[in-house]
């Protein structure tokens, strides 16, 4: 006998991974949307009149996010000005195709779209970067650059906030990753629903409690138009282990994903643990844990044909470069200015790889890039 929907008398079509309840299509849509509304309301994510940039990659998460934000904004009278914001990393055969999807979404949802590209911001496409540095560590560049790019794009549009499509699975995975790495600072902040309030644009995750499986089901039943190819550049094996572990856990106990988020929310750090101190990048004025932020270091490395500067341990290369910088700053103070990196005006969100506490679920892939997958 078919199972009945828990919300009405129709036959159920799906079993919810989060609670095990059975629902029909209509009740599922309703519950899915209202739960996101509940998340938004209970965390007081937005205020009326705000402009909110939706990080849009064309992937399932950000497509469903754009769709849901639009519906909820109308249904509940949030009074938000929604815009789509995409980052073009310059990856042929991947991003160009997914951007086509975003452009269709723009039509479908009738939302304005802005695309910022690595090429215009940094003078480098990912294709060009990979050509220079190969397939190792390229995601490091991409991740660092993307979070800056999204900030810059959003600021250009006058947005007050950025929302990203990070879902419950992404967050659970990040909690596990941070436990595995012993990275206490990130472990503490990775379950925050809004990050990066100091110094630059707050980022919110309305899907924080939404299961990836439900997002896929929603997109499937709503027949939403999304792009589902993985980035052509190599995946990170280590993150893959964490992801596989989460998936196995989910098989044993479906609530595991949200249980892990509860764990992340409720753990507390000893008072005497020293947290990394934050300072301001001397190059671009953005928050950084070093004198020069990661993005500036990486860009400098690329431009000087020494791409390994930004990655790996503080090896000789970095020390040598710091000496050079000192020389340079002497020249600078003599009035012999050299071209500053990035925008130089404090607008570029180039934090050193997200140490400013803003890195989200997928650290790389923090957003519109959708490469958290």
């Amino acid at each position, binding site marked *: 006998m078919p199972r009945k929907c828990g919300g009405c008398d129709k036959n159920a079509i799906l079993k919810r991974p989060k609670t095990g309840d059975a629902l029909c299509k209509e009740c599922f849509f309703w519950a899915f949307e209202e739960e996101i509304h509940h998340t938004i309301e209970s965390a007081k994510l937005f205020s009326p009149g705000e402009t909110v940039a939706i990080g849009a990659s064309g992937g399932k998460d950000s497509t469903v996010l754009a769709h849901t934000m639009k519906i909820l904004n109308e249904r509940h009278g949030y009074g938000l000005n929604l815009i789509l914001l995409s980052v073009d990393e310059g990856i042929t055969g991947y991003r160009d195709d997914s951007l086509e999807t975003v452009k269709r979404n723009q039509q479908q949802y009738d939302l304005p779209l802005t695309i910022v590209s690595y090429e215009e911001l940094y003078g480098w496409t990912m294709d060009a970067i990979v050509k220079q540095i190969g397939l190792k560590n390229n995601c490091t560049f991409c991740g660092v650059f993307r979070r800056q790019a999204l900030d810059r794009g959003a600021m250009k549009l006058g947005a007050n906030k950025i929302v990203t499509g990070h879902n419950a699975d992404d967050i659970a995975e990040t909690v596990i990753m941070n436990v595995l790495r012993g990275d206490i600072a990130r472990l503490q902040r990775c379950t925050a629903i809004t990050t990066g309030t100091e110094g630059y644009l707050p980022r919110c995750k309305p899907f924080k409690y939404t299961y990836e499986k439900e997002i896929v089901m929603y997109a499937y039943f709503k027949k939403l138009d999304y792009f589902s190819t993985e980035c052509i550049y190599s995946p990170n094996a280590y993150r893959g282990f964490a992801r596989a572990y989460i998936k196995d856990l989910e098989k044993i106990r479906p609530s*595991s994903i949200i249980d892990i988020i509860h764990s992340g929310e409720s753990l507390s750090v000893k008072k005497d643990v020293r947290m990394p101190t934050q300072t301001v990048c001397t190059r671009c004025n953005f928050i950084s844990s070093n004198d020069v932020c990661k993005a500036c270091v990486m860009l400098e490395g690329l431009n000087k044909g020494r791409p390994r500067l930004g990655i790996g341990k503080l090896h000789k290369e970095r020390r040598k470069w710091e000496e050079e910088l000192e020389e340079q700053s002497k020249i600078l103070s003599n009035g012999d200015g050299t071209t500053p990196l990035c925008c130089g005006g404090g607008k570029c969100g180039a934090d050193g790889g997200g140490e400013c506490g803003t890195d989200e679920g997928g650290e790389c892939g923090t957003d519109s*890039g959708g*490469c958290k997958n």
Partner: protein
Amino acid sequence: MCEAITEDGIENQPVKLAKTVRETGQKCVKCDNPGILITRIDDSFCKDCFQIYVIHKFRAAIGKTKLIRCGEQVIVAFSGGANSAALLHLIEHGKSERAHRKLRFVPTLIHVDECGILDITPDERKANRCQVIDLMKASGFPAYLTCLEQVLVMGGDETSSSVKHQPTDHPLARDVTEPQVWMVKPDSDGTDMPLPSTSQTERLKTLVNKIASLTGAQDLVRQLRNQLLVATARNLCITKVLTAESSTRMAVEILADVAQGRGSQVSLNTGFSDTRNGDVMIIRPVRDLNSKDLAMFNKLFNVKSVFIPTKASKTSLSSTIEKLTETFVMGLQADFPSTVSNIKRTSEKLGLANTETCPKCCLCMSPLDTRTGPSSALKAIEFSQKMSRSHPTEKKPTGGGDNCCRDKGDNSFQNNLMDCLCYGCRLSLHNYGDDLRRLPTFVRQRAVHMTQLDDIKQHISDFLLDEDNR
């Protein structure tokens, strides 16, 4: 999926072990004798230097923390397994004439017989016991035996039991006694120790088997065992209990705790000392040694141990969250040798929030982590359940926020009890339903007490000055 970006780029990315087989015939790193084992990441040790290393790690942990006073009585929780056998041997060595500096505490051994939950015959159970008793006797220390069935009769602890002082005809006070222990006599071979009554064993089995998932069942057994150990120590007027978790075990437990919603308890469950039970402290003196160190130590120095299966023995690699996690951690450790120490490093930095004021879980005694704000995983789940189980006549926009109501009424006993449990214990017991009434008396006593306190507090709330505003 992309490369993780961390504080300093990818520096925090664990380093993969280059899989080269070591050259044979390596020398000990301490002296020039041929090495016979590899410990930690790449150090080769000979037998003698390895012994010094293990003893040092144990003594340093005890010495550094200065938690155990000179001449103090301590309980050593002895399962008979490899880790506790190694711990017992280290203590024996420390008390012997051979020790460089003698250990000053006075050990008493306790074995908790958990075989009641297994499907084995009384004879097999006795045989298991006898093996453990032999090992305990061989140490010459005073030794006791108790069994997990005792959790059914023990009462809530002194500090939180108001019910205890009520007339004995109170339903919760009637069948309460102190948990019993049986002393192991020097001439005993174990066969003279009484087995619990069949009906008690059946009750325990039902209690555990009511939980549909093996993960939950294992978790419940763990909590019950800890509470029994603490209550037993209290009865013997001893305030320290030593347990023998290795660093490997800790790492698995940390991750498994996080996966089971027990993130807030990681520092209690895996720290050097666990103070959640008030007067009785749990201490983990071998947590700086890994499971290989301890197993090798046992092998090289002929330390005997007993293998007693658990409910999860011979089940698949993913039969429980714990087993899956162990497989995951051991697999990672093989490729990334810093895995266990990284995980442990995480836990060293974790602490407890507001331990003093927070009410405690009636089962595991950790601070309740369920009184969360409106924007939390717990409230999100409650909202989800409400959304999927209500029959709305029409779909109208919900208010959002913290208006999740819980239907009281018939289910109030269950709800009350669930309210007195932490997130992790709720998870284990979530499909218990009516059977929550079967939970051991001590849990129900604590719940009654907590509810009473809450009621009183509510009654007088108008007259209380807000602690937060003081």
